[in-house]
């Protein structure tokens, strides 16, 4: 064997890496003792289901048949931007900066540029699958648009590809800049903060964009191009479609040019100018962190809170209180959990804010304002469901064996501590913020409209344990990428709509007090039943 093998027929490192990252992405970073045949089902098939779901959602574009290309395209790009933004934002952290990966690859003869490009390649490839599914119906609708034609699918496919590159580039650029400006010490917190901000911006931006387009779609396409659209990325790509395959308006061409220019700039900065700092970032992730004396102090207040009268009265056993501390500690400290949970719940907080603001500015639509407040409360009350569901997954899932080895009969006490923890943080603080806004903007009396939401928090918190047997921090991350979870969330959201609808109806018909009493009684009964069932659940045998 020669010491340095000749590079004859081996695939280039970049190709090998891209194949590797795509395989690992589709199968997940960890497997639970599964064989080769069964592992792809954990992520790959769930991704396929998600793509099917997006393809089904793309049918909404049918309402744009016969409308101008710009209106259709603006809607399609807004939705694509939202879906891609959510995917890239959530996936990029784990893919770009995986701590364990450095021990596998960093001592191999590959450059940081090869690593970065391979990862970006995979992110873009999956983004394009998502974009393709989300635009499936749109491609055909564009052919029959008012000023559309056969050129639309081709141009729209290209503009969607550029949009995917922009999304990926923006997220990578954000990471690189955080790393360069703030250093590794603060990178993890900043990564989470940036992801949450990006997620909120994506949600708010896409909502505003699609609402504006839906409102104005009946008007001629030229009137859609209000000044602020020149600042919104989906409008740039809609402009590109419109300039080539629609009205050919000069303003559309200008928007398209801005889009191409912005994408070029972002890619240049992210992959050329700042690629060097990627290696620094990877090294920083694998280095032992410098001691931070302020850390232990942060847990002291948590221990005091758990030992305090209120929590002690609610959580009687030490296991429940341990579950409470563990949950809050992970929500505050663990990078993996933070990157999963906060971007995941950001849209939940953004959506009711938009609806409340719409209701407030609704110019006489008082019913809608009441619905908006009520919906905000109930929607925020959904958050424990989502958090507890997401909190089941962690890279350190093997540590959950500790719970089973401990002398507890089942997960009930741990689940109960976790349920109270997510209600205490961040749901109640968020509801309090909405409360302050409602109190100031709508008057203190309207605060009562948040009560249906406050009351529905405990059953929503019980739902993940009851329906999915969720135990905090007990499953590998790969199992989290589930279309089933999306369906459960859709069901929960539907219930929120119904509850908010009945709540606001009761408000205007003068039955609100009775409504609250009835809701409280039903919830008490549901909680008692759920709690009795969960107390009987025993630990499943260890794998």
């Amino acid at each position, binding site marked *: 064997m020669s010491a340095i093998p000749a590079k004859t027929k081996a695939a280039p490192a970049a190709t090998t890496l891209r194949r590797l990252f795509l395989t690992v992405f589709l199968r997940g970073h960890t497997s639970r003792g599964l064989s080769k045949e069964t592992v792809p089902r954990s992520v790959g098939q769930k991704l396929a289901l998600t793509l099917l779901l997006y393809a089904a959602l793309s049918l909404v574009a049918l309402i744009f048949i016969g409308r101008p290309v710009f209106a259709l395209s603006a809607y399609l790009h807004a939705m694509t931007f939202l879906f891609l933004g959510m995917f890239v934002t959530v996936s990029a952290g784990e893919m770009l900066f995986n701590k364990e990966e450095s021990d596998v690859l960093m*001592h191999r003869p590959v450059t940081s540029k090869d690593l970065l490009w391979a990862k970006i390649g995979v992110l873009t490839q999956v983004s394009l699958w998502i974009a393709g599914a989300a635009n499936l119906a749109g491609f055909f609708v564009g052919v029959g648009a008012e000023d559309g034609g056969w050129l639309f699918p081709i141009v729209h496919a290209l503009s969607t590809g550029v949009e995917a590159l922009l999304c990926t580039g923006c997220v990578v650029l954000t990471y690189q800049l955080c790393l360069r400006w703030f250093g590794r010490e603060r990178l993890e917190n900043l990564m989470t903060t940036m992801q949450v901000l990006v997620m909120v911006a994506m949600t708010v931006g896409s909502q505003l964009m699609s609402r504006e387009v839906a409102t104005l779609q009946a008007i001629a396409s030229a009137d859609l191009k209000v000044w602020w659209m020149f600042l919104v990325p989906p409008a740039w790509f809609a402009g590109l479609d419109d300039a080539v395959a629609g009205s050919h308006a000069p303003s559309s061409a200008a928007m398209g040019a801005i889009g191409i220019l912005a994408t070029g700039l972002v890619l240049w900065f992210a992959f050329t100018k700042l690629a060097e700092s990627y290696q620094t970032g990877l090294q920083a992730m694998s280095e032992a962190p410098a001691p931070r004396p302020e850390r232990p102090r942060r847990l002291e207040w948590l221990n005091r809170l758990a030992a305090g009268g209120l929590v002690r009265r609610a959580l009687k056993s030490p296991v429940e209180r341990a579950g409470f501390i563990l949950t809050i500690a992970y929500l505050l400290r663990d990078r993996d959990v933070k990157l999963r949970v906060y971007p995941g719940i950001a849209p939940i907080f953004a959506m009711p804010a938009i609806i409340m603001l719409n209701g407030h500015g609704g110019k006489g639509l008082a019913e809608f304002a009441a619905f908006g407040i009520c919906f905000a409360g109930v929607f925020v009350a959904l958050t424990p469901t989502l958090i507890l569901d997401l909190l089941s997954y962690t890279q350190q899932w093997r540590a959950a064996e500790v719970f089973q080895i401990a002398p507890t009969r089942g997960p009930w006490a741990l689940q109960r501590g976790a349920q109270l923890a997510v209600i205490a943080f961040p749901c109640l603080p968020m509801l309090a913020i909405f409360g302050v806004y409602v109190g100031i903007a709508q008057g203190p009396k309207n605060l009562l409209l948040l009560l249906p939401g406050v009351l529905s928090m405990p059953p929503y918190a019980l739902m993940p344990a009851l329906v999915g047997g969720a135990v905090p921090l007990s499953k590998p991350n790969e199992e989290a990428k589930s279309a089933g979870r999306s369906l459960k969330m859709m069901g929960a959201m539907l219930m929120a709509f119904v509850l908010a609808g009945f709540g606001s109806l009761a408000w205007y018909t003068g039955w609100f007090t009775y409504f609250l009493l009835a809701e409280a009684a039903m919830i008490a009964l549901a909680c008692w039943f759920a709690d009795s069932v969960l107390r009987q659940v025993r630990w499943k045998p260890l794998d």
Partner: protein
Amino acid sequence: MLSVKHLSKRFGAQVAVDDLSFEVPAGQIVGFLGPNGAGKTTTLRMLTGMTQPTGGTATVCGFDVLSQTIEVKQRIGFVPESGAVYESLTGLEFLEMIAALYGIPQETARPRIEQFISFFDLSMDTLKNKMLGAYSKGMRRKVVITSALLHNPPVVFFDEPLEGLDANASVGFKTLIQTLAHEGKTIIYSSHILDVVERVCDRVIIIDKGKLLVDGPADELVAAHNSGTLERLFIQLTGGEQLERRAEDFAKTFLP
């Protein structure tokens, strides 16, 4: 083959490695020892191009670890303490992927992999069909060791390589690295199992708090410090005697 000059690494105010210098010729097995947090792993990470030093230089096979990182990486093998692998790949997929990163074509890689799996008593069926996540710790360690030696590197770094290996595999492994050294390979062996180090290594380097404490053949060092064994020498140099007393006191607190 390996030259380390005034190598240092700081993490903020914390000094992990402090002005470390030593040379290792070809064909030597060097035991790299130190208590927890002494800076062993950080040193190995700097020598394998995984972490940048904050001071000093190091060369591997004449290539600078800082400026010629890829050339260095092509010539080294590293078995990290974590034994990290991609758990959702099969053993064979993982090893073929690693081989490809070193430019080894599949038709060359496969026979080499077969040689290793036969040496380590792994079954090809397991390697082909089971995900690495399903492997026992020992099996996974064997795959990681194979991945470090697959490209036949002239310098190999081992960080706690025996962790998880059973007694038979450990004996086989010790013989393997001695044979590799006889063939001219340079081996840096970091471990806490001191009797193995004493038996296998030609030379021992002990560091503590990032600083070099002693460097030389184990028997000479033991004789010079009048310690009797390498373990006693290690305890003597790194303040382990205090720990022994504290452990005795601590154990007494559990007695009725």
